[in-house]
């Protein structure tokens, strides 16, 4: 049986059900690398250039893990654009080339280009061509694409129930379940999925927050149309798909009365994040907002302290109600109108 390796990183979190269903239906076995560990991180750091962002280093680690298995193919798509007139990030556009240049002796790479910024005609053609690696029957490939889309939709629905994408994928595979406690705080948690839902990259952010009694709202928990509508309120359309989702989610969440605060998880060296964080900071004036930047630094304590302080502050604000508009700084650094 043909074995296809899929690294457990980057767009795995968004499209794994699609990919797995597609390859399985065509008769290939899918081998996914294990969830990120410190070893993955260390190996990735060794293989990638210093300046690259953390999730990509982790991805290099996953590819190195897959290299140890006996694989016929390794699936590293070139994700250029997943919707009309938007991009992901330049680094994703050069990903297969970077992997090829940095990690020698890999099995052949399936580097299909996903670019639907103009039309999805070429992608369809490429998918049919890709399917021909596994079967000669075009009808079967078309069926595989259809099923893959259905499974993807199913997993997206799961993700909209308040699960992280990683949990949704686990549920979709019939593995884990997670029960939520009655929340004492409602927090919006935003960030690029591949860093936000990876427990090593996000330093257990999600678990820590849940243990502190927070109910978390992810971009996927929100209605996609609401997010798009909110994102359209800023002067220029953000041309990064994930970035626009974050801006839209932040603006939408800031208008929901039940949300107590918003946390944005950014990666050090992430290009879009450096500007998106700034846009969000200026757009939400009336909700507490915290920007956390992570890199390969591995001490969790600093993160926990900041999360606890943030949650304590939100609780005090909620319970006493008198800390509403008083900033410790004296005035809001980015407020358009004076609030005091």
């Amino acid at each position, binding site marked *: 049986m043909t074995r296809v390796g899929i690294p457990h990183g980057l767009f795995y979190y968004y499209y794994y059900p699609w990919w797995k269903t597609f390859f399985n239906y065509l008769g290939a076995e899918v081998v996914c690398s294990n969830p990120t560990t410190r070893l993955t991180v260390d190996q990735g750091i060794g293989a990638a250039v210093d300046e690259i962002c953390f999730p990509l280093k982790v991805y290099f680690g996953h590819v190195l893990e897959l290299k140890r298995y006996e694989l016929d193919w390794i699936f590293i798509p070139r994700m250029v654009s997943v919707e009309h007139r938007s*991009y992901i990030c330049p680094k994703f*556009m*050069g990903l297969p*080339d*970077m992997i090829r240049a940095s990690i020698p002796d890999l099995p052949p790479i399936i580097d299909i280009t996903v670019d639907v910024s103009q039309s999805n005609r070429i992608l369809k053609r490429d998918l049919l061509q890709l399917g021909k690696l596994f079967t000669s029957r075009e009808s079967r490939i078309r069926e595989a694409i259809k099923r893959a889309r259905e499974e993807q939709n199913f997993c997206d629905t799961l993700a909209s129930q308040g699960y992280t994408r990683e949990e949704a994928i686990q549920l979709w595979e019939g593995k884990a379940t997670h029960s939520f406690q009655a929340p004492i705080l409602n927090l919006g948690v935003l960030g690029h999925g591949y860093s936000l839902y990876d427990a090593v990259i996000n330093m257990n952010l999600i678990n820590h927050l849940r243990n502190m009694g927070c109910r978390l709202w992810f971009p996927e928990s929100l209605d996609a149309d609401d997010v798009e509508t909110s994102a359209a309120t*800023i002067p220029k359309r953000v041309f990064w798909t994930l970035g626009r989702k974050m801006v839209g989610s932040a603006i939408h969440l800031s208008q929901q009365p039940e949300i107590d605060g918003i946390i944005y998880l950014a990666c050090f060296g992430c*290009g879009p994040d450096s*500007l998106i964080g700034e846009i969000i900071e200026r757009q939400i004036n009336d909700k507490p907002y915290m920007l956390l930047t992570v890199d390969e630094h591995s001490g969790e304590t600093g993160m926990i302290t900041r999360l606890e302080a943030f949650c304590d502050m939100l609780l005090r604000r909620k319970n006493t109600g008198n800390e509403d508009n008083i900033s410790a700084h004296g005035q809001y650094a980015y407020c358009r109108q004076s609030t005091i």
Partner: protein
Amino acid sequence: MKITFPHMGNMHIAVKALFKELKIETIPPPPVSQRTLELGVKYSPEFACLPLKVNVGNFIEAMEIGADTILMAGGWGPCRFGYYAQIERDILNDLGFSFDMIILEAPESRVTDLLNQLRLIGENVSIWQMVKAVNYTWHKLKAIDYWEKCYERYLGPALDKQAVNDLYNQGLQQIDEADTKQKVTRTLQELETQIKQIPQHNKPVLNIGLIGEVYTILEPATNYNIIRQLGELNVTISRSIYMSDWVNDHLLKGMVIKSNHKHIVNCAEPYLNYWVGGHGQETIGYAVDFARQKYDGLIQIGPLTCMPEIVAQSILGKVSIEQGIPCMTLYFDEHSGTAGISTRLEAFVDMLGRKQVGQQIISEGGF
């Protein structure tokens, strides 16, 4: 209306000329200085790339001396540059400046859109005047490029480096002052004869290709004047990009001159097979091109966290091995100590020099 615009190397000379023809007053920002950078760093997002910070500093300084309208280029990604203007406007608004911002976008890649936008800025300018103005500006831009090329070529072999530096600065001023196409051409010819007459030493001269991100290549204030530093180490430089290339490719979408862009993209294969925004693919393409032309070494420069250049950097290692050309990557941020950069440049140049001598000995049959 007093228009200002961001600095990018010697672009201000050409932009000034354009707006003079369009009968608009311009106030170019003061040259990029330590203060510019400090202002920019203070008010820009911490992790934004260096050009944004310099832009913000430029705008603040220009408005301090009376500018009230900002002209800025836009874009549609995936590089961060496309969103600069929006962020800059927000920052300056929050700082309490009142100004208009004109963002030049060529959304459908049509050069006429751009020309129309420009014409609307001008006061009562006919299409004919407009075309004349653009033509004259283009001529000036090419002249500046040519003069920069002369500088890069003659600084390395020159005996008296200071004389070349002085002549270069003087030349830029003369090109700035030349107010017709004919005068520009004549000035340039005179300058070239002068720079050729500067006595040269007979030590070995290295050829280094300078590749990387456009802004850091063009703006000496953000690259510690790397061209001058290398020139003083007896190196001649070839850059992967000049101002006219950038204007042609980015603003005019390759309408004006047929560039060698296609050739360069072909060179990038099989290392980088896709456009990655910014000049990532060009960086790899030129690296291969320079290597095939037997350059002695390559230096890649870019602002810290520049996305397209990181892609290129990841691949450059392989290019270096397979094409047999030494490469070094330098990233710049607001850090302002030059000693570290000088040391690295000297070490790199020394190493290349030794390699050259070694090859000479081998080709002459050994010791």
